[in-house]
C-alpha cells in the first residue's frame, strides 16, 4: 500500500511539472524594428 502511495506521488509530481512547463510557454517578444532589406548587406560577422 505504501509503495502504491509513493508511486502515485512520483507520477503526480511528474504530471504537475510537465503540465506547468507546457502551460507557461515562452513570451512572444516584439516585432523587430529592423526593415525588410532593399540593399545587399556586407559580409556576415
Amino acid at each position: 500500500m505504501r509503495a502504491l502511495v509513493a508511486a502515485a506521488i512520483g507520477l503526480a509530481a511528474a504530471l504537475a511539472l510537465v503540465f506547468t512547463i507546457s502551460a507557461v510557454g515562452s513570451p512572444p517578444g516584439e516585432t523587430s524594428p529592423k526593415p525588410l532589406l532593399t540593399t545587399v548587406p556586407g559580409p556576415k560577422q
Partner: protein
Amino acid sequence: MRRRAGLVLLAFAVFFAALSPLLRWYAFPRLAKVPPNQYQEVVLEAKPATLLDYTTLKAKEVEKVTIVQTLKGNVEESEKIERSAGRDVVVWDALSYIQGPDGKMVSEIPERYIFDAHTQAPVNATGEMVDGDPVRRTGIEFKWPFLTEKRDYEYFDAQSRTTAPIHYKGTRTFRGLEVYYFEQTIPWTKVPMPKKMPIEGVTAEQITQTGITRWYTTKRMFWVDPVTGAPVNGEEIHREELRNAKKMGMSEDTVTAFSGHVKMREDYIVDTVGLVKSQRVLVLLLTSYLPWGFLGLGIGLLALALWLEARSRTPREPTSA
C-alpha cells in the same frame, strides 16, 4: 529506515520514468515552436547570370545578380490571428529583393506567410499574399516541420502561387550535419508580372496590356536539418522568359528575362549552419537526451529501491553477545 529510503527511491523512479514519455509526447509538441518575432535575412547570388537589359531590350550575360531575402515575424498580426484561430500562429512578412550588377533594383516581391508555430502547416487568414495578390497556401514555405520525415512534402511556389510536391531525394552530409535533400521542379508556367518593374514609369498592367506574357521554370533544391526542419542551404536553377515579346518592340518573340544558378552566399551558409547546430541541441534535449536519460535514471532508481526492499526483508543474523 531502509524501507523509508526504498519508498522515496520508488517515488523518484516513477517520477523520472513518467517524465520520459511525457516530455517527448506531451511537452515537446507544445514547447517546440517557431518564435513569432524572428528576423532573418539571407543573401543569394547567381554568378554569372543572364538578365534582360531594358534599355536595349536584349538579354545579356552579367557578372552577378543578387537576391536578398528578408523574413520578419510580425508579432501584432500573429496575436490578432491567434485570437480567432485559437492556436499559436506565426506571421512572416518577407521580401525578395533582386539587384542587378549595377546595384539597381531588378524586382522586389513582398509576401505574407502565415503558419502554425508548432507544425509549420499554413494557416489561411486574411492578409496572406504574394506581391499584393491574395493567396491560399496549402503547402509549407521557407521551413520544414520539426523532426522532418523522409518523405515528399507539399511546397508553395510563390511565383506561380501554386503548391506542388517537393521530393525527398536522400540523406546527405552537409558541413558536418546529416541533412535531408529535397528537390522540386516547376515546369514552364505562365506567371504574373512583378508589380514593381525596373523601368521607371512603366507598370505591370501596361506591359500585360501589350500581350506580353511572363513564363518561368525552376529547379529548387534544399538541404534540410531534419531535427529543426531548417534549411541549411538552398539553391535554385531559375529561368524566366518574356513571350510575345515582339509586341513590345523586341527583336525576338521569346526573350530571356533572367537565367541563373542561384546559390546562398558563403557567409550566410556558415551563419545558418552555426545557428541550426545550436538550435538542434534544444530540440534533441526534449526529444532524445532527456527522455532517454530520465528513463535510464528511473530504471536505475527502481532497481535500487527493489534492492533496498529486498535487503530490509532479509532476516538479520543473530549477533553473539
